[in-house]
């Protein structure tokens, strides 16, 4: 059994937020007498993450996902509660702790804009105290995994977003960290670049047993990488567990589209007691609860002469979207 690498207990964070009224009067009032109020953005959350786990943080914009990630990597001081990451208090930012973690943000970059990425890699290597040969070995290994080669020698400003993101990853992983904090790493990337990035992260996790904490608004990132998700709503955790369980809970029914040989067969099926969503001539769509699905399917196949059958599961985006849109969605 893997040990806990991240332990969060009763964690809260408040920020002082200033608000401004509309118009010139509001602007002047805001300039001379700024009204600030303390806003609790993270409210008494608890969770643990095991070594080697890939955990996705889900939530609407402003739910508090990035704030949690930034507290975990030590950028923001918590207001209340405790965080232990890899045996250290993150906000102390001790050298050993910093050598163990990395933060990758899809919308911010650390590469030197006017120079080829290779220059940034060697600069990072010197900061992490790696000698030239070790740095070269790691750059070769990671560039092979990321499938980048010639791009290493082209100025960053001339690279495509996908190539830049791969280079950002290489720069962030040159010290071989055990814990990766990824804040929307696939933001703005095309479908192929997203897929390649996910493939790389999976491989990296498998080869190094690194722990990955990920936030993303692309559901494909979550479904293909994370077995476990933590849903954040208004600064609180509304769900912490397996992704497939969440999907079952949010979508308790499946739909089956049955194509019958004739309209008569379809009517016979309609009258057999299933919950009908809609019916057109010889096609009928029925809704079946997940726990009754197998037995219902058996009944249909044994008792009715059908031409074809399609099982429709609601798209994951749609299911997760329910959490994001409705802020007080009861999971």
């Amino acid at each position, binding site marked *: 059994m893997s040990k806990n690498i991240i332990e969060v207990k009763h964690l809260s964070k408040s920020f002082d937020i200033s608000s401004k009224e509309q118009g010139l009067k509001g602007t002047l009032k805001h300039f001379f007498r700024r009204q600030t109020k303390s806003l609790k953005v993270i409210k008494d959350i608890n969770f643990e993450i095991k070594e080697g786990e890939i955990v996705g943080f889900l939530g609407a914009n402003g739910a508090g996902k990035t704030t949690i990630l930034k507290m975990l990597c030590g*950028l*923001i001081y918590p207001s209340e509660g405790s965080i232990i990451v890899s045996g250290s208090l993150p906000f102390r*930012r001790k*050298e050993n702790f*910093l*050598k163990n*973690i*990395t933060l990758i943000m899809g919308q911010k970059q650390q590469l*030197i804009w006017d120079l080829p990425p290779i*220059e940034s890699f060697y600069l990072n290597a010197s900061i992490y105290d790696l000698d030239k040969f070790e740095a070269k070995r790691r750059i070769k290994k990671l560039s092979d995994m990321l499938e980048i080669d010639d791009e290493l020698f082209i100025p960053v400003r001339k690279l495509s977003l996908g190539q830049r993101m791969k280079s950002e990853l290489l720069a962030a992983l040159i010290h071989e960290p055990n814990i990766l904090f990824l804040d929307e790493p696939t933001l703005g990337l095309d479908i192929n670049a997203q897929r390649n990035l996910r493939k790389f992260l999976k491989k990296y996790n498998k080869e190094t047993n690194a722990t990955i904490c990920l936030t993303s608004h692309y559901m494909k990132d979550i479904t293909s990488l994370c077995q476990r998700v933590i849903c954040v709503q208004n600064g609180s955790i509304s769900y912490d567990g397996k992704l497939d369980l969440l999907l079952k809970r949010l979508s308790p029914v499946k739909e089956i589209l049955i194509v019958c040989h004739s309209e008569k067969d379809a009517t016979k099926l309609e009258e057999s007691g299933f919950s009908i969503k809609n019916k057109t001539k010889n096609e009928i769509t029925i809704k079946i609860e997940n726990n009754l699905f197998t037995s219902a399917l058996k009944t249909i196949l044994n008792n009715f002469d059908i031409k074809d059958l399609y099982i429709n599961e609601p798209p994951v985006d749609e299911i997760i979207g329910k959490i994001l849109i409705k802020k007080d969605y009861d999971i």
Partner: protein
Amino acid sequence: MNPRKYFKVYTKFLHTSLASELEYKTNILIDLITAILSLIGSIFLLSIFFQNNGSIGGWEFEQALIIQGIYTILNGITNTWFNPNLTEIVKHIREGTLDFVLLKPIDSQFFISLKKINPSGFLEIMLGIGLLLFCIRINQINLNLSFLTLFLITIICSICILYSLWFFISTTTIWFVKTWNAIEVLRSFLYIGRFPLNSFSFTLRIFFSVFIPIAFITTIPSEVFLGLSQLWEIFLEVFVATVFLMTSRKFWLFALKFYSSASS
């Protein structure tokens, strides 16, 4: 702190920032021309002040050139290191890229103060040294070891004071987010350092000695140059520089506790 590692990192900083700057050749050429014209303009302005009066505040034109030389060296250092790095702090904080700096296993103040250099500032340093060598000749100054040591100590102290003032203002960005204006005001005050402190009224002299220690930055090294300085003045400058450096360090560490990073 591992000095070998910091030296290695600094050589990488030098290499990467020189390589970045050399990508834009025309920009460097313009900077070099600006540095030469700026020095010529300053000397011309100084000569106008001294045209009718033989001396200002007890300083002859030939002596005032020493202050101009020291100011040119300090301005060169400002343009080489302080300007490209310390103005970047504001950008780092506004855009949230300070996150990357804080998560590196290296001192964050070292990183943000020395990551970049602007090579065209080197020319100003060379011009300043050239002007000082010329002043040695025209003022018939006797070069010896104690003179050079004292001059070097006071110049290093001046650099420390200048750096601390600038760094202190940049650090306040953590609370105020935009502090460009304050940095511009500081730069304007530094222009005053081109003139002898004695040429100002008593009130201004107090202001530029106590509140914004311009006096320490150029006048004391110039007095050392001319052999006019008192020992207590040098001790005072060393003391002020140490206090400024330590305060700016403590203030940075204190301010980081309030860093909230930019939203994503």
